[in-house]
């Protein structure tokens, strides 16, 4: 059974993953660059892979990845150490975007495709 929502979740992942990496432009601290890339790049990669036909279980996994990465980005961004001094708003956009799209995907998998909430 193929799903339709993967395109939306995948594009959200690509957009918000890139969003999270944009602050690298102005950043000098290597620790923040690691933060931006390690939390943004996987989302972009999964978003690209998720554009092909996938089943509901894969959609669920993709959605959970988005949700959890979004929560991690949000919790780091509110800390003084990992707060970008110039473009933190990009990380906030990435965080909320990923969380909302991820929750939408999880909700769809549960209600529309009848899957358990967690893999």
């Amino acid at each position: 059974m193929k799903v339709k929502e993967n395109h939306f979740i995948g594009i959200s992942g690509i957009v918000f993953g890139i969003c999270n990496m944009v602050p690298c432009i102005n950043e000098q601290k290597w620790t923040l660059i690691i933060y931006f890339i390690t939390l943004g790049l996987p989302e972009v990669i999964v978003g690209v892979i998720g554009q092909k036909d996938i089943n509901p279980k894969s959609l669920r996994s993709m959605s959970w990845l988005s949700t959890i990465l979004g929560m991690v980005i949000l919790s780091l961004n509110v800390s003084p150490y990992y707060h970008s001094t110039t473009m933190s708003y990009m990380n906030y956009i990435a965080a909320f975007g990923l969380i909302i799209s991820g929750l939408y995907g999880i909700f769809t998998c549960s209600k529309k495709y009848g899957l358990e909430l967690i893999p």
Partner: protein
Amino acid sequence: MSVETKQTTVDKSGDFSRSAIPADQRQSSVSIFVTTAGWVICLSTILAGGVLVGGMDLGKASIAAIVGMLILALIAAPIAGIGGRHGVPTAMIAKSALGSKGALIFIAIVAFMNGIGWFAYQAAFMAMAVKELFPNTIFGNLAVGSTIGGIIMTILAIFGFKGVTILCFIAVPMIVSLSFFGGIAAIEVSGGMSELMKISSAATGMTMGAGITAVVGGAIMGCMMLSDVARFGKNEKVGSISASLGYMIGGVFCIVAGALMAVAANVDSIGTTPNLPKVMAALGLGAGALVVLVLAQLTTNTTNVYSAAVSIGSWVNIKQRYIVLILGAAGTALAVFDIYAYFIPILNFIGTAVPPVAGVIIADYWIITRAVKKSDYSFEEGKYYGEFNWLGWAVAIVSAVIASKINFFATSFNSLVIGFILYTILALICNTCNVSYMIKVKNTNVEEIKEA
């Protein structure tokens, strides 16, 4: 391979605390891995890293963490494998090994320790952590913090394994990520890894053996109850490997992250306990640190009270949610009234006395039943397990006494190994001499009686 049970499974107690998990409700290896990782990823495990670097350098602390958690994984695997194979909790496995009355003693102790004792300790510790972060607010009041924390944990545990799993599924990756980034921050703040190693080299006074002891002793009780989670695994291999790997990897990661952060922050401890909230605040982790602390305590303590309720539910015909409510209320009350402090010496004593029971269970199943008798445990409804395995309990008590006299390695680990070896030898002798060590009620009208 999962064993097909012949009974009609009726989940009377809720969450299958008295019967095997049906095949269609088993979960993936990822779920098992994440849940057991969540079980060990907690404040006390992160603190263990801080304790280690209080007495040894970073390199030795890392080795102690890896060796200690590897030992625990090797202990966890055979116990979790039984749960994964048969789909039953630790309490029911204990019945087969120790008899109904014998297992009742074990479960009562564990339920007291995990469900009330450790619950109270961790709820109060979470309140102390919150107090450090919000000293001049209502949350800075220990009684308020303990009450709120205890209530939240109890409510979460009432929803059973699904609720715990969802919480761990969200919390574990967050805690792992925040610990990872905390470690990165620690390295950068200190001026690099070599500088961090130089700073840590000033710490002395703890031997490698003592360090491994601290790691093993602090997590062995959770290790013994892993069947409560592994029973949801699809088969023996999934239950065994996923549960033990999750426990080991989660533990090592937490300890090393805690060590890195403690060295970099260089914050005074509270007594002998590293002040982790202040460590994270000193590194600039802020609100993210609060999330780590609160989620770590929530996942571990929820699992504690859940596991205790599952164990008690295998004996009493009460819905699991009511058992959780009672245990959570008692633990919260203890935390609020500061009585938990008096339980620490008791918990330390039980930490030596209870592990040999796990050694007896491992020996009884894997050596005596599977290897020697070429048989297996069975858990049909109405099965008679025997009353009391006097040999098992005698070995457990003697092993605990012997281990307490040995000043080598970890007392809790030593008592488990001694219990395993002694029970294997003596049970084989009893079997050879046709001496029964399982007390049974005479003239019991059952189809199958376990022969010792």
